[in-house]
C-alpha cells in the first residue's frame, strides 16, 4: 500500500504506454506527443548545477546561520586564552549545571522516544472519535512561547496545582517541562515513516507464519528505528538548549536545579561573555558528539533500499 499519487506512466515520457487500442487518430497523436520537460542541454546544466550548486548553497546557508556564529562563539570562548577557558568550564556551577542538563535531557529523550513511537502508532494505526483533534494538538506545545509554557506548567503542576502535585523546584518538574516541548518531534518523526510503511511486507511475514511479536520486532520496529532515533536526537538537542519553559518550574537553584542554559544566561548578564561562550562551546560539543553517534546508529539500522 503506497502513498504515491504519481506513477511513471504519468510523466508523458517516451516509452509511455502506447495508445489504447481502438483510439481515434487524434487520441493516438496526443499519446505520442513529444516529452514534456526541459531541453536536454538545459537538463544537463540543471543536473550539473544541482550537483555542485545544491550542496554549495546548503553549506552557505548553514554557514551564515549556524557555522559562522558557532565559530564566533568559539573564538570568543578562547579570547582570554586556554587558562580562562579552562577556569570557566571547570567552575563548580558550570560542572553541576552541565551534569544536570545532560542527564535530564538524555532521560527525557529516551522517555519521549518511546512515548512518541506509541503515540504515532495510535495516530496512524488506530482509529477513534477525536483522533484528528488529538493529532492537531500535538504540535501546539511547540507554538507556545516558552515563557507561556513555563507559566502554564507551573500553574498546573506547581504549588497551586489543581492535582495537588508540586513539582516546582524539582528535577521531575524540569523533566515534565522538557517532555512538553520535545514531544512534537518525537511523534512527528515517526508518524510519516509509519504511514509510508508498506503493509504488504507485514502481511507477507504474518502469512508466512510469523507471530505478531515477530512481525513487530523484525519487520516493523527495525524500519522505524532510524526515525525514532532521529526524533530522539532532536529531543535531546532541544532539551539541552531549552531555557524559557523550565526556568520557572525549576526554581533555578544553583547546584540543584540550575540548568546549563540558565548558568550561561547568568554569565552573559554578568559581563562574563567569554565564560558564557566557553560553557556553551562545551555543551554544544557534547551534544554534537551525541548527535553524531545517533546519526551513525540511524544509518547503521537503515535498511538500504536499492543497490
Amino acid at each position: 500500500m503506497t502513498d504515491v499519487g504519481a506513477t511513471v506512466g504519468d510523466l508523458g515520457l517516451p516509452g509511455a504506454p502506447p495508445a489504447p487500442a481502438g483510439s481515434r487518430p487524434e487520441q493516438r497523436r496526443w499519446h505520442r506527443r513529444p516529452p514534456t520537460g526541459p531541453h536536454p542541454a538545459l537538463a544537463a546544466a540543471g543536473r550539473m548545477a544541482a550537483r555542485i550548486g545544491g550542496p554549495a548553497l546548503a553549506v552557505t546557508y548553514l554557514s551564515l546561520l549556524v557555522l559562522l556564529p558557532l565559530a564566533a562563539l568559539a573564538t570568543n570562548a578562547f579570547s582570554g586564552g586556554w587558562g580562562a577557558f579552562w577556569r570557566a568550564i571547570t567552575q563548580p556551577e558550570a560542572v553541576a549545571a552541565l551534569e544536570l542538563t545532560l542527564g535530564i535531557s538524555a532521560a527525557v529523550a529516551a522517555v519521549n522516544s518511546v512515548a512518541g513511537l506509541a503515540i504515532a502508532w495510535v495516530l496512524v494505526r488506530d482509529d477513534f472519535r477525536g483522533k484528528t483533534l488529538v493529532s492537531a494538538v500535538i504540535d501546539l506545545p511547540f507554538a507556545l512561547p516558552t515563557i507561556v509554557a513555563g507559566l502554564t506548567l507551573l500553574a498546573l503542576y506547581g504549588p497551586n496545582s489543581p492535582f495537588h502535585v508540586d513539582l516546582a523546584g524539582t528535577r521531575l518538574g524540569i523533566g515534565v517541562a522538557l517532555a512538553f516541548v520535545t514531544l512534537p518531534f518525537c511523534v512527528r518523526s515517526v508518524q510519516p515513516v509509519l504511514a509510508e510503511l508498506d503493509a504488504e511486507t507485514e502481511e507477507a511475514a504474518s502469512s508466512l507464519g510469523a507471530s505478531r511479536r515477530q512481525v513487530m520486532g523484525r519487520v516493523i520496529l527495525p524500519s522505524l528505528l532510524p526515525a525514532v532515533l532521529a526524533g530522539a536526537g532532536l529531543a535531546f538537542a532541544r532539551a539541552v538548549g531549552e531555557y524559557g519553559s523550565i526556568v520557572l518550574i525549576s526554581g533555578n537553584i544553583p547546584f540543584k536545579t540550575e540548568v546549563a542554559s540558565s548558568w550561561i544566561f547568568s554569565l552573559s548578564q554578568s559581563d562574563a561573555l567569554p565564560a558564557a561562550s566557553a560553557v556553551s562551546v562545551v555543551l554544544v560539543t557534547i551534544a554534537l558528539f551525541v548527535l553524531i553517534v545517533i546519526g551513525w546508529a540511524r544509518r547503521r539500522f537503515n535498511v538500504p533500499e536499492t543497490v
Partner: protein
Amino acid sequence: MKRSRWRLPLRFAVLGYLALLVILPVSTVFYRAFQHGLGTAWDAITSTDALHALWLTFLVAAIAVPLNTVFGVGVSLILARHRFPGAWLLDALVDIPLAISPVVIGLALILVYGHTGWFGSWLNTHHITVIYAVPGIVMASAAVSLPYVVREVLPVLQEIGTEQEQAARTLGAGPFTVFRRITLPNIRRGLAYGVTLTTARVLGEFGAVAIVSGAVAGKTETLTLFIADSIDSLDTQSAYVGAVALCLAALIVLTLLTVTDRKRDDWHKEVA
C-alpha cells in the same frame, strides 16, 4: 492491529500521557485567554502594539519558513541520495542549532553581524542593518528551527527508496521533473509535518529573538516579546491571548498542509 488485544490499553496509555502533558496545559492557556470573555480577549489582541507584533511575527515566519523548507528539502535529498566524505558531520550539524540555547544563538549572531562583529564594518559601509532589525529576527528564527524539515523528510526519503526515481530517470526524465512528480508527492506528509514544526517553532521563539531584536515596541517586537512584556506588566490576559493567537496560527498551518491527506487515509482504509 485491528484485532490486537493491546489496542485499547495502548490507546488509553497514549491518550493519558497526552492529556497530562499536552492537552491539559494547552487547554489551560485557552481557558485563561478567554476567562474574562471574548470581548476583553479581543481588546487585548487588537491594541496597536499587539497588532504590530502579530504582523511582524507573520512576516518573519513568511520569510524564515520557506527558507528553511527549501534548505531542508535540499539537504535531505543530498544526504539521502549521495555519499560524500563528511556526510555524517553535515547530518549532525543540522541538529546543532537546537543544542545551543536560544540566548546564545542570539549572542553568537551579534558576534558575527553586530556593530562590532565580524561582518560589522562591512554591513555598516553598505548601510545594511541586521541586528536590532527584521533581518536579524529572521536569521535567529531560521537558525532555531533549522533541522525540522530535514528530520521529517530525510527518514521518509530513506524509507521509500530510489526505485521509482531511478525508473523515471531511465525513461529520460530530468532531475527537476523527477523531483516534482515522483519525490515531492512521496515526501509530502513528512514535508507537511516539517513545515508545521518549523512554523510553530518560529512563531514561538523567544530567547534568541529577544536578544537580536532589541524589543522596540511597535518596531521590532514580535508576538512572543509582546507576550513576555505583558507578563512583566502583570497583564497575563494579553499574554494568554497572544499565546492563543500563536497556537491558532500553528493549527491553521497544520490543517492547510494535511487536509488533503484525509482522502488518502480513507483510501488506505478501503484497501487495507
